[in-house]
């Protein structure tokens, strides 16, 4: 392997440690909160089935409640989360680019 490359001269704010930290933290924050919403429902459904079997077996137009949730309603729920995430993350990136360009000026 060749010798490690020295980090470029910190002439620019984007190469600084605080910039990277805030960048990763903001993106991870958004991802984790979206993932948490998803996981609460995904991992909570087996628990509901486990502790409230009679309630989850209630008939809703022929479906049992739990079948309706998992077999049909779960898909649109995930679409909503992904739509929200994409909107927020694109906005986040735009903000970052804007703030860097302002500081460069």
């Amino acid at each position, binding site marked *: 392997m060749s010798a490690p490359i020295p980090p470029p001269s910190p002439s620019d704010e984007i190469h600084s440690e605080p910039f990277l930290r805030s960048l990763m933290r903001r993106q991870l924050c958004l991802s984790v909160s979206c993932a948490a919403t998803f996981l609460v429902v995904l991992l909570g459904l087996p628990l509901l089935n*486990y502790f409230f079997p009679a309630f989850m077996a209630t008939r809703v137009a*022929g479906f049992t409640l739990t*079948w309706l949730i998992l077999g049909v309603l779960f898909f649109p729920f995930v679409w909503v989360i*992904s739509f929200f995430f*994409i909107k927020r993350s694109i906005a986040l990136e*735009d903000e970052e680019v804007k703030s860097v360009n302002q500081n460069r000026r």
Partner: protein
Amino acid sequence: MSNLFLPLAFLGGVDPWIFAFSFVTVAVTIGMGFWSATKSKTASDFFVAGRSVSVGWNASAISGEYLSAASFMGIAGMVMASGYDVLWYPVCYACGYLFLLLFIAGPLRRFGAYTIPDFAEGRYDSPLFRKIAVCFVLFIGFVYTMPQMKGAGTTLAYIFKSVNLRGGPLAFLAPHSATGEALAGFPYWAGVALVGAVITLNVALGGMKGITLVQAVQYWVKMFAISVPVFVLMAVFGFYNGQLGANMASGESSVPAPMAERKPLVEKAPADTAWIAPFGPLTTKAVKAAAATLPASEQKKFLDEHQKPYSLLYTYSLIIALVCGTAGLPHILVRFYTNPDGVAAKRTTMWVMILIGVFYVFPPVFGALGRNLMPELYSGVGAKGTDKVVLELPTLLGAKFGVLGSILSGITCAGAFAAFMSTFSGLLVSMTGAFAHDVYGRMLKPTATPAERLRMFKIAAVVIGAIAVLLGAQVEQLQINFMVNQAFAIAASSYFPLLFMSVWWRGMTMTGAAVGMLGGGLCALACTGTIILGDIGKVDLASFWAAHPLARILIEQPAIWTMPLAIFLMIAVSKATAASVPADIRMKMLVLHAPEQLGLKQEYIQEHAAGTGH
């Protein structure tokens, strides 16, 4: 060549519609593959070509490659066999993309590595690590090809079920009963060999290089082939809710809801209460088998204590394997680079989730319809079991509407061909590429010329295709969907922890990543091997499983412990070898996370070119 067409002489009893639809699908797919292959010769052509493609086409292509025989045939068959618990499969197959979108897709695309081995090498500056990462392309690939082969064998056995090979020049092909007597019909292994040979030849000759257009069209073929027959069947026999209404949950004497007519269940079918409710036959199988060996007086106590907790454990492990596994499938991640930029990549992912989500509503409908209308499939084994419900169910329409049943059955057969052909050729291309490019080109003979590598690609395609056929011929008894689940478990314990940790934790070292990936991945692989060998009867483990139901569950669904094991090993070993964190880690992290508009990627490449001569 004329020998290939000899079987045509025996086609007397084959439904012409079913045969025609299937044949046209195969011919058109191969034709389009070659037509597109002449337009884009090299790997970079393929990637760049993708960039001129809109988000819609790209999303269709990713979905087309993803929906395999497991999605098209396996889910329906397994829902019919085991009921509610199987719904986790379609849901997690679709929702795994959310994890991919949230944590991996964006950073990986910015990094500009085309494959996971590329990423592994770039992130850790280590060609050695690349070689380790390549092995898992092959491991996951082989496990993933087995169910595709079972799909092929099942479909051909269905299409040619009335063929009579006895007494002709092909008599040796005829399937034999347990007593050695020749039977009518087409043998499972011959279907596997035929489809495997056709696709392998196609890949070796240069067609079907996973071209965007072919895969995109395949998605719409599959979508059409699953949805149209479902709507026609539901219009005739009663809608989804009515079909489920015909099955009583526990404690119900009658259902206050629409009910469809149904045929009486056969002896082998699970009871209504177990089928429609959570924690049914799929997740309680191990505990039931263990209870059956106990004296009758202890059985009830044992079941009460263990049945539900163990099936909850099974459910969670299945969820982890499928959700995390989707985010670590090598042949899917590659496709994200066909997007022009990060925004398009994210939009594409969302459209993929919508396209496959809509698709995944339909297979369980087939399962519910099959349970009520074609319960005789419960008695069949192997290629004659519930895995063929998607293919056979539309023929029920034949009694009322004549030829319509055959046409719809032909359409679902065409969809099945599209499903296993697209996934098998995609896998074959990525495995052959990994072997020819990395194993041969970098390890065995680094000095090979491009011509030698091309020759090696062809040889490797034939060898890997042959191995896939041999493996596929062994697994007739296993459910298609279950085998795909095993491939996902391996991906969830190897590539997913690698990608997730490498992207978000700068303290990862090459040693940590390698130890974690090998530890988790090889454990999952060993579990898969044990289960498959036991279930196809090569090794007799039945008494061991009966004595240790918990071990059975943790080995059948290993992700719940192998995935955390991989992450734990990565953290522990990386901490111990913290001195070897790559020196330019801050720059690497910036490239992974900073928006592309800042132009860091370009800067990084220039530095690398100037600094190290890469």
